[in-house]
């Protein structure tokens, strides 16, 4: 059954205003409560914010394809700011080979060779922050932990040279802003786009990459003919775009959750094997990637209405992950919860291909912290970093009380 378009509730909200980005939760609740599909006149968009519809839209690549862009811009009518991603901004059949190659390289069994090293790296990072620093250590959880750890392990795993890695975070920040409207956040990044894009492109070349990393494995797939030589650098680019900021803000989310929920920290210390669950619960609770768009292929029925052909639909992953229609007490960060099925990594064909990397980074860092830190508390209120796609912190002041040896 479908209803006429007039029946679609309309909400005059701006998901990309600074006020909303500072605290998107009230707007997300209003969107969920307004209906299964909501029209946003400000951007001429359809939006879904309930778990059921967000998940249905995510998996339906046939009717909600990605090749017209997964941001607000419709690539059928506008030129993208960079050559489209072969993964994120592609549909079958073009999506098949890049996805198959990267899924194997970043799959759980392929990551086993990194596990011991990353756990040791996390121990080392935490020791460096605590050893000889007294009974209480105050630090910024973002720079000292959430950024430091991924930047320590991930570029090495890709096989990047040491120089220039400081470009990774600003490039990712801009790429995730660029999925939104062309607002001040996009303008802020614009002056450096050329420089950052050129640096990223230069890092994707075979001769720049080490011979034992994810990057080399992508090029090896091109030698085997599983992808073309022209595809290889763009697939490396996907790693550099989507693999850093996302995990940084996932780690920020879990550190914030643990610091503000002493019971959760106690649970993790008693049962460090729950680190992986804790990380996913934080991805559900904060949803570092808040939103993605799709484009309707023909008139698409969803949630009792129809999205008109070629219209953008905005999927609120973060709102779905806090939908009380699906989750019990969704605003609570709860280590006793089973967060399975959250859509923080997306769902379906385009689900985050790096999710196992993110979980491994999360498990390594949390395990090291749980072993060495007795108490973790906020040292001051955190400050948000505004991004059109990501829910992020600029600073996360923490007070760590090391465990007695």
């Amino acid at each position, binding site marked *: 059954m479908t209803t006429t378009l007039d029946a679609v509730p309309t909400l005059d909200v701006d998901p990309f205003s600074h006020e909303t980005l500072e605290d998107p939760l009230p707007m997300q609740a209003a969107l969920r409560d307004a209906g299964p599909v909501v029209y946003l006149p400000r951007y001429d968009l359809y939006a879904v914010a309930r778990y059921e519809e967000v998940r249905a839209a995510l998996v339906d690549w046939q009717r909600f394809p990605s090749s017209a862009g997964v941001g607000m811009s419709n690539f059928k009518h506008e030129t993208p700011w960079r050559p489209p991603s072969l993964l994120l901004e592609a549909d079958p059949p073009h999506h098949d*080979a890049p996805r*198959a190659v990267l899924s194997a390289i970043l799959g*759980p069994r392929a990551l086993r060779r990194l596990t011991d090293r990353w756990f040791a790296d996390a121990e080392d990072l935490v020791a460096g922050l605590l050893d000889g620093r007294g009974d209480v250590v105050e630090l910024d959880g973002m720079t000292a932990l959430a950024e430091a750890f991924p930047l320590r392990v991930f570029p090495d795993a890709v096989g990047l040279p040491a120089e220039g890695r400081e470009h990774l975070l600003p490039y990712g920040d801009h790429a995730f802003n660029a999925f939104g409207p062309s607002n001040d956040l996009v303008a802020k990044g614009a002056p450096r786009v050329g420089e950052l894009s050129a640096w990223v492109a230069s890092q994707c070349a075979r001769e720049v990459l080490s011979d034992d990393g994810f990057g080399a494995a992508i090029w090896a797939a091109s*030698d085997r*003919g599983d992808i073309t030589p022209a595809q290889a650098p763009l697939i490396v680019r996907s790693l550099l775009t989507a693999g850093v900021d996302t995990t940084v803000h996932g780690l920020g989310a879990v550190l914030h959750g643990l610091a503000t929920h002493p019971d959760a920290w106690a649970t993790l210390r008693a049962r460090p094997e729950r680190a992986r*669950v804790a990380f996913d619960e934080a991805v559900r609770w904060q949803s570092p990637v808040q939103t993605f768009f799709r484009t309707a292929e023909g008139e698409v029925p969803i949630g009792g209405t129809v999205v008109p052909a070629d219209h953008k639909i905005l999927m609120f992953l973060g709102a779905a992950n806090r939908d009380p229609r699906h989750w019990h007490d969704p605003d609570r960060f709860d280590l006793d919860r089973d967060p*399975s099925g*959250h859509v923080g990594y997306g*769902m379906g064909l385009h689900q985050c291909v790096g999710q196992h990397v993110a979980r491994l980074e999360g498990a390594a860092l949390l395990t090291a912290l749980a072993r060495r830190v007795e108490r973790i508390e906020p040292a001051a209120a955190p400050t948000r970093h505004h991004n059109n796609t990501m829910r992020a912190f600029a600073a996360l002041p923490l007070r760590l009380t090391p465990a007695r040896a």
Partner: protein
Amino acid sequence: MDRLVVQGKTQVAEGVVALVLARPDGGRLPDWAPGAHVDLTLASGATRQYSLCGDRWDAHTYRVAVLREPDGRGGSAYVHDELAVGDTVGFGGPRNHFALVPSTRYLFVAGGIGITPLLPMVHQADLVGADWALLYGGRSRGTMAFADELARHGDRVTVHPQDEGGLLPLAAFVAGADEGTVVYCCGPAPLLAAIEDATAHRPRHLLRTERFVAADLGAPVRDEPFVLELARSGATVTVGPELSVLEAARRAGATALSSCEQGTCGTCETPVLAGVPDHRDSILADHERAAGDCLFPCVSRSCTDRLVLDL
């Protein structure tokens, strides 16, 4: 256990029936790409692999085609003689060891029922505007399934029944292959040997083959309940056919993180400490399945009376 219901059964050539399969509740099926196969478990307990040969843009049905084996044993006779519309079959996968790699030019060679994985490949090659040709051999015209569907491609498709034209002219067919041409071949072993000979002068990765295997696979799969033991807590729970291992483990108090719950994302990978897993996922390669040291409890089950997991 995941089961599919037979929605349609059609004779598509002498000795070949096509089955249209769907979820009993009509829900979405796992995504697949050309070259993928599913494992179907038939009433006899035998598991057989069948290439998907339908339309991947239809998320709600799978199509497979089944050749009646000459020796008449096992799964194929059951499918032909007994399986009826409305019946259900167990299913695992899909998995893909025969993926269509990107190229601007393809040569496809099919022998008999080996046409099935190539059917969605030619559709896709056509869709992306690649240059392609198909050479399709069979014993006789009447035994060659889907020749009618292929007719719309005109002279890109050469149907070559052996009783009319003899063996496939492979050397001539691949003679024009340039350095960007990828050759795909599926059929019986002698055809694969012949195509390897005909392309021996070319880089190996430009030939992709899949052998049509008639044999039943692996241990007989069971529908009977088995005992799941969770090593960390020592808890045990009986898993009947209505319950996934993942759900059973959760009911017994285990925390098992999962995501897609259809055997594709890999989140719920769990070490197996004892017992023989009945793999139903889309992830593991054959040698990884054979190792039997891990499983994806969202879809996979047990071949043995007892399965011990590191949960």
